[in-house]
């Protein structure tokens, strides 16, 4: 397990180093102390730790939102911001066939809104039933709704170029 790239190889200094001056000794002592602090005790660690989403957000689900099998998730952070996305059971994700994502729905293109500044100027107010985007598969398209009342700050514009992300990592690729 220990290879030369391993951080803790300084303890293997061979034989006599009489000429090591005291500041170097001090420094390596400090490093040793630091190392001991940093390395965890495996017994204290869970086999599988909670994900960042689980640890920082409250996860809500909206099954059959306005239409059957339109299952969406809402991850709400303690600061009030929410991430909205497709739950794994959403009909669009069956067969993993998402081909395109279009943000041009309703009255504006959601991917073109520029929200600026601490006060989040230009953020549009949305109701629960306002459309966020349209997800297309080879034979159908589905409207994704906001599910909560609030202001839209940002959309996941990577989905425009890489709609396949929804197929592979839907839980961590929110809208």
């Amino acid at each position, binding site marked *: 397990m220990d290879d030369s*790239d*391993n*951080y803790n190889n300084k303890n293997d200094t061979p034989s006599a180093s009489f000429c090591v001056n005291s500041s170097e000794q001090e420094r390596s002592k400090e490093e040793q102390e630091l190392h001991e602090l940093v390395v965890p005790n*495996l017994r204290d660690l869970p086999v599988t730790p909670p994900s960042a989403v689980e640890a920082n957000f409250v996860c809500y689900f909206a099954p059959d939102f306005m239409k059957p099998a339109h299952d969406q998730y809402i991850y709400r952070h303690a600061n009030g911001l929410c991430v909205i996305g497709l739950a794994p059971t959403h009909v669009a994700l069956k067969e993993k066939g998402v081909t395109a994502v279009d943000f041009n729905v309703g009255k504006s293109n959601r991917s073109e809104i520029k929200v*600026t500044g*601490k006060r989040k100027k230009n953020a549009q107010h949305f109701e629960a039933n306002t459309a966020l985007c349209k997800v297309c598969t080879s034979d159908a398209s589905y409207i994704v709704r906001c599910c909560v009342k609030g202001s839209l700050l*940002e959309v*996941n514009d990577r989905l425009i170029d890489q709609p396949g992300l929804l197929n592979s990592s839907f839980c*961590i*690729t929110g809208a």
Partner: protein
Amino acid sequence: MSSYTEVSQVNGDEEAHVVAASEAAQVDTNKKEAQVTAEAIPSLPPHVVKDLLSIGVCVRCIFRLFGVRGCAYSCLSLLPSDLLSSVEESKGSHDCAVGICSKASENLNCALPFQESEDEPVFCSICLGILQFSYSKEKETLVKKYSASEFAVSIAELVKQEGHQIESFSLEVSVPPIILANERAILLYMKRKYGSEPWFQEKFLTEHTSVKDALKLLIIDSLGSLLFGTGSEDSLIALDSEFSEQSACEADAVFRRSLDGLPDHLFCERFTLPPERVNQPCHMAFLCYRTPIYIGGRYLKYSRNVSQSRWIIDDERMGQASVEEIIGGNIVPLLRGDDYKFHAAGREDIDVRMLGSGRPFLIEVQNARDVPSCVAVKQMEQKINNLEDRLVAVKNLKVVGNQGWNLMREGEAEKQKQYAALVWISRPLEEEDLQTISSFKDMRILQRTPIRVLHRRSPLEREKIIHWMKVGRITGSSQYFLLYLCTQAGTYIKEFVHGDFGRTHPSIGSILGCRAEILQLDVTDVKMDCFLTE
């Protein structure tokens, strides 16, 4: 000169009754003042002086308006009636000098209250009693000092009460802005009435000493000697401490600006010329305040439940304690200060430990009564480091001057930080991964403002640099490992590990092609040049 012998004779007889600090120096000063005053008197046109006295201008303001400078101001208890009579006398003879001197010295020797004659304005129409040392303190009590040095004595008393240990001071006076209006009113009145007279052209168009400057001139010397026991000029250099004396309510900058912008003819319309007499003096508030003392050093945080600054939401404290309270709370009482402000070069989350060399910080102690010695500072350091719960430690604590600020702020944004993160990935770690990670040098990443701070920060995309990374395997685990990295200041490490819904790219998750989570983070080095061990 005959005038001098007069004065010294009088003084010799009445020594016991001298009011001011009975030192030879004081007597000499008085002689000098009397002489300067005597020299100034002949140049004052008597009819004007009488006129001004009748509209309620005090003697010192009259001196100011006529451009009399120097220590004539402090001539003790110059009665208006004396001024008037000596000015009238001076029209003819040279004996005025004698007259004014003997009268002045009589007042010097007489400790008793001020005689109020009809000509005496109770409170000057211009300076509102400030240059007459009449003012009201809290609870509406009227205070009247009879001389500049008596006034200085009362100020010095207030300072000594605070118990400051100082080497120098600076005096700041602020006066109500209405005084500017009053002075302008008097000047315009005089211009209107005497504008054609020859002396007016000569005397009146020059700069006048302001009420503020006059007051400062009057008391600064005696204040200096009272506080430091020496009369040297050096003590007037403003260094460690400050006093300020505020008359009436806070100066209104807006008032001043509008007054400056008002042309003379409009001024005459809106203000009465000459201004009406006042029967109430100003209120004087005295504030003695020391310029802040800075103590700098580096702090370490060993707890994952301690925030950097006090964090209270809805009356409930977040975390067990805070770094600033631990450090500030143990320093301020030792200096007998009033309060502290904590400044640090950057910050870390509450659940992130600060280890290694520590993070530079500055404590600004406000209104400290004592300046700590090197030994005292060492003791402070030991006290903090030996606290029972060992949440925080400090290093290299020392008193710093104003350059402490610059040291900290300089290049704060460019400095690099080193971290150790405990990372978990969703698949076993391979040898290859170690190589991949070590191979990145000065990698650029794009971070959108993390969701956890997006509510209070602007939504921006920030490019950051990861200078190097190294993996430390943990024996016994294939999915947990330590990630050591060195990044540009301002990089969000947690988001770099888990990717923040793909908003930080690249991330450890995207580099290794799996899900990555961060469990613990420690800052191991803040690469800055300040407050290092010498």
